[in-house]
């Protein structure tokens, strides 16, 4: 039924606008100010997932967006609900996740009077959103929603918040009625993101690329946002270019590919980190020279020229001044570069990278990721758990992680061979991200196996969303790496604070994770013996009608290696103790 041109109230118009934008699911939580918008949801074809905390709604919207590429939508009420979505908004802002957040607001006459559940939502969220707006008339709702989706999904994607005062959506307010028309286009004179890079910049980039002897393709999350994985594969293969994929880009290039060096950065592979340090050309593709990648900026890749491809002009020169700046969409830029390379003779036009590739292979062989297996009677090694999980799941499994050691091990030990199979909180580092993000991903990709790899600290921050998963029949699986500690903080205290462990012990058995998971409607297992790991994963993978939590009791003292100490040069990378030569300190 088309409601185009019919008389609607603001609440109906808001839901109608979301339908017109193609929204299939809203993650939300009702409350006083947003109540009038919840009534028309009953009559809408849009699915609403009722979360148990507003933060969960935001992260679910993010997980949905990461997995599907479509904007995630969350809707909550005013005041405390709006402040509860600040964390996911900030998370989406730093990781460039397209998301539209609708918040209720007190009625316009009450704004500024410190009314019940009033807060300055647009003021509070200004610095954690790509854009936000307070809508002041019902008739403005269709334009506001169209603008929000346009801004969230174009250019460098990001979260947009739309604040809706109660009176303009109130069915009892005669002024909240107007004749609905969906806007045909969006007119924002100050927002015209550049898509196609200038031809000169492409030519200059290819000039540098063809002469480089030690090139590295430094791939960031922008490649995934631009749906550029295919163009990337072509570019890397034609140029015989070694590839590193940052934490935000895992899966953009297949880990199984011979050109793939894995993840760079603070906990990156030795070969990936050192390749960047020794390279003579970094082709930064949708990456932003984050401090967790560069280490000490002054000592980062000292001999490398830099080609920087990014759609956000402000990223160019923010950290490292590029030699060639290519402003535009990564996919389009790589397609243009591929065409340009083709015209100059294709693979033959490149310098010989054989010695460079040999050097890289040497580093890969000398310093692979490694860990020692646990001794008899010990708890599990977390790396072992991740490896068994990886081998027990199909290649297209979606993995969502929390933040900390388990996140690094998951990123290191999983083989990401498809784009959009890895979902994590890279920029903000939001503990508790994985469970709601996994739920959002599963809603968007119901036919895919979705595992949340979580830590015991993270789990306790957002576990209540497993109730949402049970009630809404969203059968995600959680691999809980329970090492009884805030593991990453413990690692830093061990290495940099003389083993003085301050406020990091969580205990293995308080809470009882199995009972807790069962109470939330999940099937739950506890695994303590290495021999049971594979079997339990297989059992979990067979359950499709309920969420599953598998608690893996892990050794507390395990550390993430390699590691570049914070603020240190990437040349000071610490490999696993078993790989260190005489005289190297821990």
């Amino acid at each position, binding site marked *: 039924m088309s409601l185009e041109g019919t008389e609607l109230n603001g609440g109906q118009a808001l839901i109608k606008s979301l339908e017109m934008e193609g929204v299939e699911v809203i993650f939300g939580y009702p409350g006083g100010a947003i109540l009038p918008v919840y009534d028309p949801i009953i009559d809408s074809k849009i699915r609403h997932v009722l979360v148990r905390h507003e933060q969960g709604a935001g992260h679910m919207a993010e997980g949905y967006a990461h997995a599907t590429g479509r904007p995630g939508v969350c809707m909550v009420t005013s005041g405390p609900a709006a402040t509860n979505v600040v964390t996911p908004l900030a998370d989406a802002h730093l990781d460039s996740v397209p998301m539209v957040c609708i918040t209720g607001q007190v009625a316009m006459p009450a704004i500024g009077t410190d009314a019940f559940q009033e807060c300055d939502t*647009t*003021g509070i969220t*200004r*610095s954690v959103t*790509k*854009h936000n707006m*307070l809508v*002041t008339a019902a008739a403005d709702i269709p334009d506001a929603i169209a603008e929000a989706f346009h*801004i969230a999904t174009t250019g460098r994607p990001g979260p947009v918040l739309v604040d809706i005062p109660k009176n303009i959506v109130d069915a009892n307010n005669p002024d909240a009625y107007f004749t609905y028309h969906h806007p045909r286009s969006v007119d*924002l*004179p*100050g*927002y*015209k*993101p*550049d*898509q196609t890079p200038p031809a000169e910049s492409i030519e200059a980039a290819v000039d540098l690329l063809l002469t480089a002897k030690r090139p590295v393709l430094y791939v960031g999350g922008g490649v995934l946002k631009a749906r550029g994985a295919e163009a990337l594969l072509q570019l890397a293969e034609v140029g015989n270019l070694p590839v590193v994929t940052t934490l935000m880009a895992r899966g953009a290039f297949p880990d199984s590919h011979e050109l793939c060096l894995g993840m760079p950065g603070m906990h990156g592979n030795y070969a990936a980190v050192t390749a960047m340090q020794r390279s003579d050309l970094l082709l930064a593709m949708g990456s932003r020279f984050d401090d967790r990648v560069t280490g000490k900026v002054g000592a980062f890749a000292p001999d490398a020229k830099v080609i920087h491809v990014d759609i*956000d*002009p*402000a990223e*160019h*020169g*923010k950290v490292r001044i590029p030699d060639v700046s290519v402003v535009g969409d990564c996919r389009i830029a790589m397609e243009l570069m591929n065409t340009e390379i083709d015209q100059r003779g294709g693979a033959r036009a490149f310098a010989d990278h054989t010695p460079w590739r040999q050097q890289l292979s040497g580093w890969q062989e000398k310093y692979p990721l490694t860990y020692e297996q646990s001794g008899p009677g010990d708890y599990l090694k977390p790396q072992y758990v991740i490896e068994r999980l990886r081998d027990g799941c199909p290649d297209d499994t979606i993995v969502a992680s929390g933040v900390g050691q388990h996140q690094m091990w998951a990123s290191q030990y999983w083989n990401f061979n498809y784009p959009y199979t890895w979902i994590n909180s890279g920029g903000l580092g939001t503990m508790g991200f994985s469970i709601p993000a996994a739920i959002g991903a599963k809603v968007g990709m119901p036919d895919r196996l979705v595992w949340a790899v979580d830590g015991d600290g993270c789990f306790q921050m957002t576990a209540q969303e497993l109730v949402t998963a049970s009630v809404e029949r969203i059968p995600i699986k959680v691999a809980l790496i329970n090492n009884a500690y805030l593991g990453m903080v413990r690692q830093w205290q061990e290495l940099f604070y003389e083993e003085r462990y301050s406020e990091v012990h969580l205990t293995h058995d308080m809470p009882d994770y199995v009972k807790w998971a069962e109470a939330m409607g999940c099937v739950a297992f506890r695994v303590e013996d290495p021999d049971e790991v594979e079997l339990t994963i297989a059992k979990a993978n067979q359950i499709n009608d309920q969420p599953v939590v598998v608690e893996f009791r892990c050794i507390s003292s395990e550390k993430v290696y390699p590691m570049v100490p914070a603020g240190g040069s990437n040349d000071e990378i610490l490999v696993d103790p078993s790989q260190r030569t005489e005289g190297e300190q821990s």
Partner: protein
Amino acid sequence: MTANGTEAETEQTIVVLVENKAGLLARVADLFARRGYNIVSLAVAPTHDPAFSRITIVVDVESAPLEQIVKQLFKLIHVVEIAVLESGYAVERELLLATVEAPTATRGQIVELVDIFEGKILAVSSGRLTVSLDGRPDKLDDFEALLHDYDIVELQRSGRIALPKIGRQVPRLRAVG
């Protein structure tokens, strides 16, 4: 703070054309605060088209590279155009108001000073004068410096406004696709 001192090295005037939307000034101010950029002075008013306002910002380019400030400002959705005004390429004006203690002994000197600078006497009382001066910011700097020989009760400057000089090329960034 007024725009004193070695302006050429540390300060830069940028003129930002914005859509006239609620909260716009807060967005600009927030951006400067969040990223640690310093504003030396700021003036904002609607243009001849009431849908747009023009914000003239004198920025402290020692606090951050001008290029980053301009690029980050441009990311604000309602920023339509930014012109970076190099000195010599802009017409700049500012207004100064000051109330000065003016006992009989020095009143004549103050009036003379105002005359030399072609300023105005706006108000007179038995012991005080309120004076005004408009013009180029450096002229106001000179006037203010000399006024400091007397007892200043209150002094306020408007912050500068600026437009590109007619017929001169100005680095102008525009949000066009």
